[in-house]
């Protein structure tokens, strides 16, 4: 019933996870293993692209919360980009903009990674 898929691609210096469909308790494990793989490979510059994401539940939100600390402890970040107004509202109600950087466009997020690395 829940249609969901994701794809991971290189966009140096970042890895981009493209989300597609419904992210809920059934499909959240897929996102979780994608994050886990990236962390195992020590890729800590992660952008999540929400352009094709239709819906996210509390289980989906929980996945981000599970990895953010580890990623940030390794000088990386999970930046969120391309949300539809509806999906953004879900994040906004919870106050996620205070905790995560949310951009309209994937390139803005990527640029932020480039900038922060050139400074650091």
């Amino acid at each position, binding site marked *: 019933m829940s249609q969901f898929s994701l794809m991971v691609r290189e966009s140096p210096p970042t890895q981009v996870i493209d989300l597609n469909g419904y992210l809920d308790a059934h499909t959240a494990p897929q996102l979780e293993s994608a994050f886990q793989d990236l962390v195992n490979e020590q890729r800590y510059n992660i952008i999540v692209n929400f352009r094709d994401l239709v819906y996210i539940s*509390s289980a989906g939100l929980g996945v981000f*919360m599970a990895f953010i600390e580890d990623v940030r402890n390794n000088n990386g970040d999970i930046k969120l980009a391309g949300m539809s107004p509806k999906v953004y509202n879900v994040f906004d*109600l919870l*106050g996620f903009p*205070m905790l995560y950087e949310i951009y309209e466009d994937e390139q803005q997020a990527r640029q932020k990674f480039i900038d922060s690395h050139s400074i650091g």
Partner: protein
Amino acid sequence: MHDQLDISDRQAGHSPRPGLAFTLMAIAITWLVIMGYDAILAGTWQVSPEDYGVFRLLLPLLGLAPMVLRLLKPDIITDDREAYKTFIRLTVANFIMAAVIAILQLLPNSYTAGATPGSYFGFLVGRTMGLVTMLGLPLIAEWIVRLFHYRVRGIFSILARLYVILLAGLLLLGELLPFRMNEQTLESNIVAAAIGGGLLALGLALSIRSGWLMNLRKRQKLALLGLSFLGFPAATVMHLMLRDDSARGAIFSLMPALAPFSTVILLTLLFVHMVIFISALLALPTADAIDRRNDEVTSLANFARLLTKSLETEDLVETAIALTCDATAASAAWIGIREEEGETMHYGDTPKLPAHVAERLMKARMPRGATVAAQALSSRRTEVAERVGDTAWEENGTRRELRSVAAVPLLLGEELLGTLYAAKERDDGFDREEIVVLNALADQIAVALVHSRLIHASMERKRLEQEMMIARDLQQRLLPKVMPERPCYEIHAESQPASIVGGDYYDVVRFSDNTLALVIADVAGKGASAALYMGMVKGIVQALSGRCNSPGELLARSNVALHGAIDQRWFATMTCAQIIEESRALRISRAGHCPTLLVRNGKAAFSRPNGLGLAIAGPELFDANLSVEEIAFHEGDYAIFFSDGLPEARSIDGSEFGFEALLDVAAEAAARGVDAHGMRDAIVEAIERFAQGEPPTDDSTLVVLRWR
């Protein structure tokens, strides 16, 4: 006339008619009465038939009437075995009758028709012969008629009926026609001859239906062969004896009606014996095969029946092992059932088989090198290993050995449930027939195993459902039974989980300054885990509220308590609204929860003060981002709190109700001046109309506060 296979007939068994004892008594009594009549009233030993008065004529018919009634409505034979027993009774009765009459014949019995007897003794002997015949014939006739009616259909049903009717007719004729004892009765009258001839033809036709002996056991067929072989001459002897003049005179002088009757019956008996003899002879070559086939069918039928009774694996295994040994003449059988940890062997209690022998048999090598067990698993077919060595053991002092083994995979569709093993003492194991039986048994065992599993799973599920129902009940009790009501405000509140239990709740807390506050919360997730956390959150919030005097404080303290309490991904949303009665105001703080819907002066809008969800971040971030809104109301205004189950309610086409639609509904209802319950109805109905029957996917909570 109706078809003998009519169900009602079957179930009735007997229709009302004279009992056997009564029938025989009637004949015996008639015998006495007639003797008495002859001796006393007619003053002679024997009244001549030409001198019969009406009474004397009808007396025998009266005595025979019960017999005729019984013949017209014979007992129904219900199965082949009963038919077999009926035939045996028939033959035995015939033997006994023949023997008795033969013995009596040897004694002096001087009796010719119409003449006076030479002595009292001879007279008595003659009369006794008569009685024996008169009692024996109805029995034999009845059993013959029962056999003729067994499993009879269509034309044969009609013929069987006709046979009895003609018999009755023959009796009547025999009694009413004045013919003389010493003449050949049948030929003396055309009608009688015709009826007699017809009866014999019918008797032959009906006795040919001997299919009932097909399914008897071999030894029963042999018994039939023997009995019919002896019965043939016995019937012949009887027949000849009864044609003897003096015997005839002795026997039939009292009831001449029985004379032609006896001829027909005895000749019919002759036909029946002849046919049974030939049929039994022809059935012998296939008797063994049929016995085996029937045994197999019985085994499988037994197992199918026991299948529904055995729910426990051990019972099932015991039954399966016993039946396998029965049906294939195996000396031992055992079953390996696949579980997560591997295959568990079940040996059952009998026959006792040492584990090492079973191991050796299962590991017997096949010609292609694999063990018989492995081969069966890979080919998914029954494999047989012959001439297996090293499989002897001592049991109660006797040496036992199993030299061949069959491994039968238990398959249900594609799933392999285990393996059935059967072992024999013979070197050359199992023949094709036995393998077919093993396969059939294996199928049944597989079904039984799955059946048992399903039943246990179903029972477990039922138990869990019951527990869920109890949990649901308890969770409903965690919600406040009664919402506070004051002159200046009323509150309606409700919460529905999406499944049986859920993670939403609402509550009323009392702050340290004794003011009341509404709390509405949504714990991450759904179902049982969310329900557990909901209980925890409610407890924490209740405990903390006594030390707070503002919603912001309550949320901040709750966040400290909850942050890290479960794990990184868990969180909760909450809105807390302190009720300030005196100024008709609400002080609202929001921790990540849905905005509050306010309807003031007929206009609907959302209140969405800043605030992170609970347990997402530590106090530094949480407190820094938390705000409080104080909102003043007037009479007739509403404050509506809800959880995301409402705006996320889905319609059939997948679209969501949305936040905006809530504004419209609330404004419209407010314009009508509804009370709190009325506002709730308006919202619920609007969502139901939108959803068009689509069930809710998230927990839904709705709290309406109306100022008055």
